[in-house]
């Protein structure tokens, strides 16, 4: 049989549950560490780990042993899932803030809820703060103010296409920053 990663991939594709357990035992700690570095240790990181291994088990053919190591593939999956989680959290926080402004007389979230989201929110806010001003502006308007691209274009006085390209650049930079944090993870 072929090399270790190729053999593991072939076993996963054949429905070998022993292979899945073996892959988890070998790479699970690294995947968890990578996820925890971005979303913080706890339930969020565990969700990312679960997503990564369910994805591998459900679609083992998406991993190509000739393209790289299984560990590298899993870390890449973890990075994407963790960043997706952060983005979702960013949107959730933005929605929550808009909601507070519209319902100022209602009760704020509980201290527990605030603590839960504090870590992820601060990571993302720091990353946004480091963006060039023009890109930060469209991100804040689109995500924190909930504007559409057309509304952002009108508010800033730039073409809609420019808004979209700035958003793309900003999101790519955010992902890179968050990725770097992940790569520097122990």
């Amino acid at each position: 049989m072929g090399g270790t990663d190729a053999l593991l991939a072939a076993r996963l594709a054949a429905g070998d549950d022993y292979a899945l357990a073996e892959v988890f035992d070998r790479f699970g700690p690294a995947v968890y560490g990578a996820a925890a570095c971005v979303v913080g240790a706890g339930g969020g990181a565990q969700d990312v780990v679960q997503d990564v291994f369910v994805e591998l088990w459900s679609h083992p053919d998406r991993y190509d042993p000739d393209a790289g190591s299984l560990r590298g593939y899993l870390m890449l999956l973890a990075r994407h899932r963790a960043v997706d989680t952060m983005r979702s959290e960013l949107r959730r926080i933005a929605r929550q803030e808009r909601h507070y402004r519209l319902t100022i007389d209602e009760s704020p979230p509980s201290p527990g809820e605030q603590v839960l989201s504090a870590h992820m929110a601060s990571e993302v806010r720091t990353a946004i703060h480091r963006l060039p001003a023009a890109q930060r502006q469209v991100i804040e308007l689109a995500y924190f103010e909930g504007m559409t691209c057309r509304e952002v274009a009108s508010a800033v006085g730039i073409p809609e296409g420019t808004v979209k390209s700035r958003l793309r650049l900003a999101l790519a930079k955010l992902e890179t920053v968050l990725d770097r944090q992940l790569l520097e993870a122990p």
Partner: protein
Amino acid sequence: MTATQPDVPTGLRARVLEASQHARAAGESVPAVQAISPAEAFSRAADALYRTLSALDSADWSRHTIRDLDVQGLVGHLTGVEDDVQRCLAGDPAVKLADHVESTQAAATRQAGRDPAQTLGEWRDAVSRTVSLVAARDDDDPEACVGLHGMRLPLHVLLVVRAFELWTHENDIRLAAGLPLAVPDPAVLRLMTRLAAPLLPVAAASAGAPGPKRLHLVLTGAGGGTWDLDMTDPAEAGEVSIVADAVGFCRLVADRITPAELDPYITGDHGQAAGVLAAAATLALD
């Protein structure tokens, strides 16, 4: 560069494995292979052999294959098998215990001196008759057994055995003609592995192989899968895991390669695994 990794939280491993099993049950290979009927598998195997035979040079027909047969004789043997299958479907008791080789020897030897096209046409007609008889059969009980060449098994199983046989002899012929070996259609291979894998405990017991209590068999590639088999006559408690290529495994079961040539990945007692693999070859017809 080595980095310290955090401990995985307690319970995460179990949670991940359970969620994975929920998303996709163990045992089935992915991407999923098309499910076909045993009759379709037989037809596809026959079509594949026909294509190989149609592409042979006239000189290839006289090349030596297995036993004392040349290619033409081997095709004659297959015509004889079709004749016996048709007698079996007609309820002829004489073919139940007839020997697979002896019973078809006359059909093999009468090919000598014939035009290969005549041999090919005769075999093709015999296959067509079998296909028609199977299609016309009104099976009230699909598990009802038929008897042929010492085997007693449901017709749908017999058809997979026949597909297995046609593929095996196709490769005997390709080997004789210097052609690359053929890999079965994945849908046909799927039925072949599902036929052969569960027979390993019986084969091991019949061969007297000192097997493990449990065999975890993984056949890789399209048409493969994973089986957890309780051995019929285990020598001792314990489990052996064997991972092998699905096509190679079928060639082993056809007694065309040795366990060493299969190059399996084994976990557990290697002696017991070797015994099981050696026993697999005893499932071959000829």
